């Protein structure tokens, strides 16, 4: 603790007393350190975000110190325990951050005025179960949908599908033609089947937030039609995936699509910047098809990154200034444009320049947003509903189990530890 304090005092150009006062007066020179797993974004922070903030807030210096994504949770926990963690902490969604808040590591930000810039869905990933405390400022979400090869669609004279029927008709036509793999997805890594499959198309069946909250409240069950039907649809995907999809990995699928060998890619918007550099054909996107034309559409607009304040920080005022700025439209516009596919969550819409990202974000206006059904609360126990959903989605696509049986299995697993479902 003492050492950290000393190094801070040295790092700041002011005298040690200046740092002490820094807690009270944010105009003094202080340095804020940010913990993050986004080491891919290091240059973005150093070249764009931090200079923009420092220009507006002289006296506060910011340092972005990311660690490797796979190690982040463990590294952060040990740093917090040792008292050497940074002032600001990038938050994983849901239980990982909730556990930090409950252990007293993150401060409650519910009284931060800037939190009013976010909708309830946006905040839900970093709240206590009753919603009384919010401990991270939402930074970005990812939206699910399908990315397609525009040239392939033009060549085969396909219209962009709106309904499920059109969707399968398009897949059938691509398969008959034979020059493209209809859809690039594999089941080897399992998570794609659940994330880009089940939770991509699912919200249209369980009506987004309505179904998700009812499931958490125990009013709906995973054996209900709305939760089983997506598995029935996934079961129809199998024949349209490439040869040997059982052993196809996530990078395989990405490559198949960007090399122009597949026509449709079930996607998350985080793919956009990678695909933009890899693919040399024009791409478009369509949202998960609805069952009948004119139905309300629901999209998975999944909260992914937030940022909170270390409860043990020596500079709470400066940290709050920074968090308020992260909640501002200025940050949203820098972040959203530098990382197409990671969409800012603030209520004020952000003007994006990337056409593909624009297409994704435009669905927010037409459809109801929700988050992945398994992420909040329901994956807290053993068996873990998210992991089970991976397996179930794979089994549905392979045709290894009947959708109704999958629903029964998931329900009994959830009911074994989750009281509202018992």
């Amino acid at each position, binding site marked *: 603790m003492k050492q950290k304090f000393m190094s801070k005092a040295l790092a700041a150009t002011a005298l040690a007393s200046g740092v002490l006062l820094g807690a009270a007066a944010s105009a003094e020179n202080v340095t804020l350190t940010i913990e993050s797993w986004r080491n891919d974004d290091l240059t973005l922070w150093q070249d764009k975000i931090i200079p923009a903030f420092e220009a507006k807030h002289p006296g506060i210096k910011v340092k972005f110190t990311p660690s490797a994504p796979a190690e982040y949770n*463990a590294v952060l926990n040990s740093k917090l325990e040792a008292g050497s963690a940074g002032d600001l902490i990038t938050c994983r969604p849901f239980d990982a951050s909730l556990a930090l808040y409950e252990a007293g590591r993150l401060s409650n930000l519910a009284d931060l005025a800037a939190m009013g810039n976010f909708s309830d869905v946006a905040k839900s990933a970093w709240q206590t179960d009753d919603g009384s405390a919010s401990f991270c400022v939402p930074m970005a979400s990812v939206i699910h949908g399908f990315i397609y090869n525009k040239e392939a669609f033009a060549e085969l004279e396909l219209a962009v599908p709106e309904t499920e029927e059109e969707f399968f008709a398009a897949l059938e036509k691509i398969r008959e033609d034979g020059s493209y793999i209809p859809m690039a997805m594999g089941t*080897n890594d399992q998570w794609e089947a659940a994330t880009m499959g089940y939770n991509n198309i699912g919200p249209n069946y369980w009506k987004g937030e309505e179904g998700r909250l009812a499931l958490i409240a125990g009013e709906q069950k995973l054996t209900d039609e709305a939760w089983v039907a997506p598995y029935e649809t996934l079961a129809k995907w199998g024949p349209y995936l490439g040869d040997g999809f059982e052993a196809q990995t996530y990078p395989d699928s990405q490559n198949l699509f960007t090399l122009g060998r597949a026509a449709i890619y079930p996607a998350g918007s985080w793919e956009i910047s990678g695909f933009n550099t890899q693919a040399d054909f024009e791409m478009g996107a369509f949202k998960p098809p609805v069952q009948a034309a004119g139905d309300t559409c629901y999209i998975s607009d999944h909260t992914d990154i937030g940022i909170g304040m270390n409860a043990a920080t020596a500079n709470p005022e400066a940290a709050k200034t920074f968090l308020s700025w992260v909640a501002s439209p200025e940050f949203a516009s820098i972040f959203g444009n530098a990382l197409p596919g990671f969409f800012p969550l603030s209520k004020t819409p952000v003007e994006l320049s990337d056409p593909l990202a624009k297409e994704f974000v435009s669905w927010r206006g037409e459809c109801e947003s929700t988050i992945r059904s398994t992420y909040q609360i329901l994956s807290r126990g053993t068996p*873990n509903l998210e992991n089970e959903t*991976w397996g179930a989605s794979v089994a549905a696509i392979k045709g290894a189990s009947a959708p109704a049986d999958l629903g029964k299995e998931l329900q009994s697993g959830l009911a074994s530890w989750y009281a509202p479902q018992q």
Partner: protein
Amino acid sequence: MQKPRTRWHILVFLAPAVLIYTAVMIFPLFNTLRLALYSKIDQERVYTGLQNFQTLFGDPIWSEQFWNALGNNFWFFLIHMLVQNPIGIALAALLSHPRLRFAALYRSAIFIPTILSFVIVGFAWKLILSPIWGIAPSMLDAVGLKSLFAPWLGKEEYALTTLALISVWQFVGIPMMLIYAALLTIPEEILEAGEIDGITGMSAFWKIKLPLILPSIGIISILTFVGNFNAFDLIYAAQGALAGPDFSTDILGTFMYRTFFGFQLQLGDPHMGAAIAGAMFAIILVGVCIYLFGIQTRMRRYQL
């Protein structure tokens, strides 16, 4: 009467090894076993006795995974015993043939995969067997056997066997080297004496060499057993922590890793993880004891 001297040098010579071994092996081992007796309840670490083990073996959610992993582990071990060790012995027998040319080249070529990292082996084989970019489907196609190809790593019924065979490919050099060394120690006179009695060629191998290398085969078996029941890397590198498809390649190592460190939304539970590690330790201990007391003491040894 002479007072017995204290032999300090013994202590001094033993100290470094004992200290280091205690610090990096014995202490962590017992600390892990101790960790298994606790649970975290409301942010507090509480002593709960054997409750973690009760959950592991009593709760169907846990026990099903445990028995699945253990069964897979036995299958993994069986394939190594049935494929890796016989091939290793056969290769060693061939290599020790006095008239074989380029023996050193073969020896190194077969041994090289052993020194490769698991990550490289896992990744390379995943690429070789990939139904999309792999050379396995096109090679089979070239000899007209394309119909035999399947996405092996993605099928529940083949994935574990495929991975076991990959591991065999990687480690076949170890039994080969050990047996080769054992074969070289067999004195020429014995073989020549046998020859005079009319024992040559294959029967010389079965009747003279094999009994003499039996202790080495025993050592290899126990090394294979310990190695296989501690295995984790290859499965993790090739299939990830969920050991797909549908847990068909889940072995105790991956099960322990998933539980201990958590996975995706599942938070890590060091206490349950330690309980699984404890069970693994017990299984290996029992296996090694059976070998040491049941087999090794009864093995006949020959004075050369």
